[in-house]
């Protein structure tokens, strides 16, 4: 209420705006007075769906509160960073860091934005701790989100230009310390590059220099930069690798690295930039998994996995790297579910080990992942103890299903009584396969020989693994049966127009990349591995070791590894395309979609597999089959 209606210095409150703000954290944490003051400074803008330009004012960072409609924040490469709905905020990162706005805004649905100017925002931050904390945390989260999806960061090939902060702050040699200190404060930077008359870099002044060379040495503040700057500055070219600059910084113990082009400074690379890039690893995703206390929380994170896969594909990571990375994520999810289950059920009564089979065991998971797992329990387990382990396994299996790892169609899951056994039970099962093999019994057993311990007591696992290796290696009948099974899946011969041509002459218009391309190679690798009793599980590692043991020629091993990589990559790209359009990923390749080069390469890959299969037949069946 305006007293007497003449007090023009006090703004009136617009109840509708104030009430809206007060419904949203952190505005609900403000005092009545702070809230009223904030609401009075709001400016309201309206945008239409589809607009992208002129919304974020690059020269004037503000806090934007979505009042109605829907907005998307995208980075300058068009990657989605955030989708903001009524009550949501954007624009605050620039206000917090002082960095220039680089993101773009896309209006998804017509709506109103409340804009709060920088001065008011900063005043609220200093007046209210909850307000300050909220935006700092939101910023950390967003940063994390953004870098997580920046594909180029996964590579060692990341270049300085991708990371460094552009629009660097420079000063001339004759400028005074006081002036430059003011400049640094104004620009919120911790260092200034000093240039000569030709604009060439000739030195560097940092916060530390100000402390060490000015204050500590009692120099006057009107000293010129040339007296206090660090000369012979180490700098890097914008095209150099981030990796190299990391080495330089570590080697010389420096935190600022000017980036130059033809001697002129164009950017500054700081230790902070490097730390940010480090966070981009899927390692970050995994650390987040490690913090989740509920299945619901894990489910939320697992929704990011398809995006992780897509960005890895875009980053041209190898199929091998992608498989290992995706499996690492699955492993982390599994471990976290086990920890959650133990939190709820209490400590296990006897030691146990969680086993992964199949693709998770081999570490070559893709976009489609069923679960294949089992529970290995110490022999001290009593009948009553199994109640605990059944509950544990059920929690994990159900949790994985919720996170998108569907129940195994073949029921190979720890929650089933068959695949939750004491050590003695597992040994018996494996020895039955190995010592009394029949190709029928082995048909579905091959995944068990790609076994890895994900969690729990490693000694239990090693005990089982040793038993399996000892029994299998050199067991000709077992290997012959495995080989006979493996040879049932042959690669096609090649392509004719839109058809896949089989060796039998049969035509089909689709090709199952997993069944006819990748699995045969996995089978070959497994048979070699079992023949000499190695504990290697990864297909490429098995092939490499087989070559080292001279069971395979190095050339054949390399060819198989290349074929595996090529077909796997084709499969991943295909799955990435399907994910992109919101379809369920599968393994079916339509030959029509192949380029002529890919057709040739694929045909070569098939030939490699076929000849390796022929060699396998000679080596392991020896007329037995």
């Amino acid at each position: 209420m305006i007293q007497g209606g003449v007090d023009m210095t006090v703004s009136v409150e617009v109840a509708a705006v104030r009430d809206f703000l007060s419904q949203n954290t952190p505005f609900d944490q403000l005092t009545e007075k702070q809230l009223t003051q904030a609401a009075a400074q709001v400016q309201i803008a309206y945008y239409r769906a589809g607009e992208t330009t002129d919304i974020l004012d690059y020269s004037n960072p503000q806090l934007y509160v979505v009042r109605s409609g829907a907005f998307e924040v995208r980075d300058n490469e068009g990657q989605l960073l955030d989708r903001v709905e009524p009550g949501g905020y954007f624009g605050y990162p620039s206000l917090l860091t002082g960095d220039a706005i680089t993101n773009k805004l896309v209006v998804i649905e017509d709506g109103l934005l409340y804009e709060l100017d920088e001065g008011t925002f900063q005043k609220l931050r200093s007046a209210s701790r909850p307000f300050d904390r909220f935006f700092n945390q939101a910023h950390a989260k967003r940063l994390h989100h953004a870098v997580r999806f920046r594909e180029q960061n996964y590579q060692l090939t990341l270049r300085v230009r991708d990371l460094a902060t552009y629009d660097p702050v420079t000063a001339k040699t004759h400028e005074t310390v006081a002036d430059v200190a003011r400049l640094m404060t104004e620009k919120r930077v911790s260092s200034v590059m000093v240039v000569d008359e030709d604009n060439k870099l000739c030195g560097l002044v940092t916060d530390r220099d100000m402390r060490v060379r000015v204050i500590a040495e009692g120099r006057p503040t009107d000293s010129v930069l040339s007296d206090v700057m660090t000369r012979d500055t180490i700098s890097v070219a914008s095209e150099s690798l981030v990796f190299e600059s990391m080495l330089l910084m570590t080697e010389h113990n420096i935190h600022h690295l000017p980036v130059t082009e033809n001697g002129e400074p164009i950017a500054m690379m700081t230790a902070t930039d490097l730390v940010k890039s480090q966070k981009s690893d899927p390692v970050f995703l995994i650390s987040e998994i490690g913090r989740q206390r509920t299945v619901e929380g894990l489910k939320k994170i697992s929704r990011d996995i398809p995006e992780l896969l897509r960005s890895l594909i875009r980053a041209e990571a190898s199929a091998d790297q992608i498989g290992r990375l995706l499996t690492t994520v699955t492993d982390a999810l599994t471990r976290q579910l086990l920890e959650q289950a133990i939190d709820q059920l209490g400590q296990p009564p006897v030691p146990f080990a969680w086993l992964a089979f199949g693709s998770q065991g081999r570490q070559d998971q893709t976009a489609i992942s069923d679960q294949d797992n089992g529970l290995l329990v110490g022999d001290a387990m009593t009948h009553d103890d199994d109640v605990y382990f059944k509950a544990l396994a059920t929690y994990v299996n159900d949790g994985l299903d919720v996170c998108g790892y569907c129940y195994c169609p073949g029921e190979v899951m720890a929650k089933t009584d068959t695949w939750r056994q004491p050590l003695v039970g597992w040994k018996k099962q494996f020895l039955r396969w190995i010592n009394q093999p029949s190709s029928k019994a082995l048909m579905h057993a091959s995944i068990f020989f790609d076994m890895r311990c994900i969690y729990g007591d490693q000694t239990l696992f090693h005990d089982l693994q040793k038993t399996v290796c000892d029994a299998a290696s050199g067991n000709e009948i077992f290997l012959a049966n495995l080989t006979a099974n493996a040879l049932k899946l042959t690669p096609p011969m090649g392509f004719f127009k839109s058809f896949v041509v089989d060796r039998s002459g049969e035509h089909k218009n689709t090709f199952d990349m997993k069944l006819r391309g990748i699995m045969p190679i996995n089978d070959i690798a497994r048979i070699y591995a079992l023949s000499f009793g190695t504990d290697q599980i990864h297909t490429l590692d098995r092939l490499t070791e087989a070559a080292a043991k001279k069971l395979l020629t190095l050339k054949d091993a390399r060819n198989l590894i290349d074929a595996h990589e090529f077909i796997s990559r084709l499969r991943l790209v295909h799955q990435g395309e399907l994910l992109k359009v919101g379809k369920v990923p599968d393994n079916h390749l339509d030959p029509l979609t192949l380029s002529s080069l890919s057709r040739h390469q694929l045909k070569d890959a098939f030939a490699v597999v076929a000849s390796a299969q022929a060699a396998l037949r000679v080596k392991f069946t020896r007329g037995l089959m």
Partner: protein
Amino acid sequence: MFFRGADWIVKLKQQRYLHRCQNSVMRDYLQSEFPSLRTDYRQVEYLAVDLEMTGLNASDDHILSIGFVPVIDQRVVLNGARHIYVSSDQGVGQSAVIHGIHDKDIDQATPLAEALGLLLDALKGRVMVLHCAQLDLSFLEQACRGLYNSSLYVPVVDTMALEDQRLQRTGMARGSESLRLGDCRRRYNLPDYSAHNALIDAVSTAELFLAQTRYRFGSHPSDLRHIVSIK
């Protein structure tokens, strides 16, 4: 609508009103520079205004409150917003039910002369934005004549008229769609405000104005004369 070359007519009329007017408050207002009708509408400042009255008839009823908020650079600027309760000898009467204004609010209120002075001051150099301009203008006209013995000369954008034009452009029969403020707002996905007073309705009108111009012109320029109504 103004026509080509209308700026000089505005100037002429401005001079004529000034010549006839003796009151210093009104003279002060009339001496301010009026926005050129050939300016890009986005570079003009606006003042969205809403009045609460005791009724609909300017000669029998009177103004209870005035709310206004500037629109500058395509933004509703809340720190320029004012909400003025107008004092009156008569009580609020029946309309308190509608407006939620009670006699006790009016007790702390501003005399009409002072309230109108504040409004005129805020209107200087700006275009007035009203929803259903005719009604509010008739009350303001009545007040100006009574207090200043002068007519109110001001460029006006009527959001209701803009909406009517838009509906006609899109081929809707006149009268087929409601032109009430709330209904117009809904067509632009603007939120409903539960409470109503002169200030909230002024803000509502300002937001509607932003939405209408965004829809009509996008990010393209357009002369002010294309949206201003006659007065």
